[in-house]
């Protein structure tokens, strides 16, 4: 198959698999929602406090739910050694990664579509007319996070403590994305368009750099 074909095939397979077990996506959504909720109990629900904790709560829940998800979505390939089945196929390893990456991105975005309104309501987050710009930032950050997450899920799968190692490796390296998300959102709330563009630029550069590196390095990780 030429071009992105194999990646699309894998993406479609992942979507179909995910739809078959909606209960797991629902579980992730509930978990993420709980994280958002718990952050509210951290301080007093005064408007000032809420405005401060809100973005953190939202992004933290995305981070944690994502970590759960990446491990789960890759674990599907571990069962019945399906990953070997993929390695047997005449597909370049880069396309295998692209397919998994796309799937993780879409699932995470679906989760965020639920989380953002919930967090916005609970924390009275108000971006005025800038929700479109925030959506752009959200998508860019999610793409980068999904790249790292999918990649490190594969790395962690090669260890005997995969559930420990995925967050340990993933979180420190995702700090720039977390910062970009929070700062970018706050810049929008404060009307600081220049700052927003800076953070969006950082996230974009991050995506391009690590998207490329992870795609190229995926083969090294999953092959014996």
């Amino acid at each position, binding site marked *: 198959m030429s071009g992105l074909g194999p990646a699309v095939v894998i993406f479609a397979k992942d979507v179909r698999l995910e739809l078959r077990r909606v209960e797991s996506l629902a579980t992730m959504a509930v978990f993420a929602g709980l994280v958002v909720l718990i952050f509210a109990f951290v301080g007093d629900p005064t408007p000032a406090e809420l405005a401060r904790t809100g973005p953190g709560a939202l992004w933290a829940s995305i981070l944690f739910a994502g970590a759960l998800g990446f491990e789960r979505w890759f674990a599907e390939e571990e069962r019945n050694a399906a990953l070997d089945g993929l390695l047997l196929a005449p597909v370049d390893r880069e396309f295998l990664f692209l397919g998994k990456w796309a799937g993780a991105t879409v699932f995470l975005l679906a989760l965020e579509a639920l989380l953002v309104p919930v967090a916005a309501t609970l924390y009275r987050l108000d971006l005025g007319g800038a929700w479109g710009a925030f959506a752009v930032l959200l998508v860019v950050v999610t793409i980068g996070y999904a790249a790292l997450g999918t990649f490190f899920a594969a*790395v962690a799968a*090669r*260890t005997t403590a995969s559930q*420990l*190692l995925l967050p340990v490796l993933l979180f*420190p390296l995702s*700090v720039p994305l977390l*910062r970009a998300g929070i700062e970018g959102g706050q810049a929008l709330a404060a009307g600081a368009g220049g700052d927003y563009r800076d953070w969006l630029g950082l996230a974009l550069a991050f995506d391009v750099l*690590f998207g490329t590196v992870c795609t190229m390095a995926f083969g090294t*990780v999953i092959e014996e």
Partner: protein
Amino acid sequence: MRWFPRSWRQLWSTLDGRLYHFLVDVRPWIGWFAVGTMVFTFGLVFWWVPLEAIQGYPQKIFYIHVPSAWLAYASFAFVFVASILYLWQRSRLWDIFARCAAEIGFLFTTLTLVTGMLWGRPIWGAFWTWDARLTTTLILWFIYGGYLLLRAFARPGIDVGRIAAVVGIIGFLDVPIIHMSVLWWRTLHPAPVVMILDDPGGGLPASMLVTLLVSLSSFTLVFVYLLIQRVWQERTAENMDLLETLLDRTGRGMPAKGEAL
């Protein structure tokens, strides 16, 4: 590397061997030199360099803290280069090099954090402030930790060196970006207590600069010595294991000269 001229490729393929043996031979000299400069540094710090006006005695931690930080980050550069070389050349030496550099880098990062905390306590009354550099160093500590945990928990039978190499490369590429984002963060929302970790205001007086540079050199020598020592240990251990495996397999003793294993 098919396009390299034969002679070049030969040089490359034996470069790690020659480098290794050279460093092992030079090791004791570096060791003694390191001890000497360390003693000298000690002398300078406690008997020569003047006491800093505002901070007083605790300021002297600066002469340990800054070199530690420098080496913590430089060490990661070693991991980066060794990782690339391992992926490219597939020579065991580079994998060992990367792992040992990570171990020692982890050590120096811990030292940086601890000295930073010990310094902060008497000066600002708090063990920790979210200064940009300290924060990035803390994240670096976690990245090192994750790298070492990855090697520790790898499934037996897989070539963890290649996976670790990739993680090392990604980590190294990310550190400047992490630092940038943390720096932007801390300048956008500065903490009420402003950190003056190294510069009391204006440039560093000459005596302090000299002491710092001497300390830096001595720490670097210690680093290099530790690195060679560790690499040598690990390389020897691996060779022993290989020998043991080979002997097990044949079930006989050491082969006679000229006899095939």
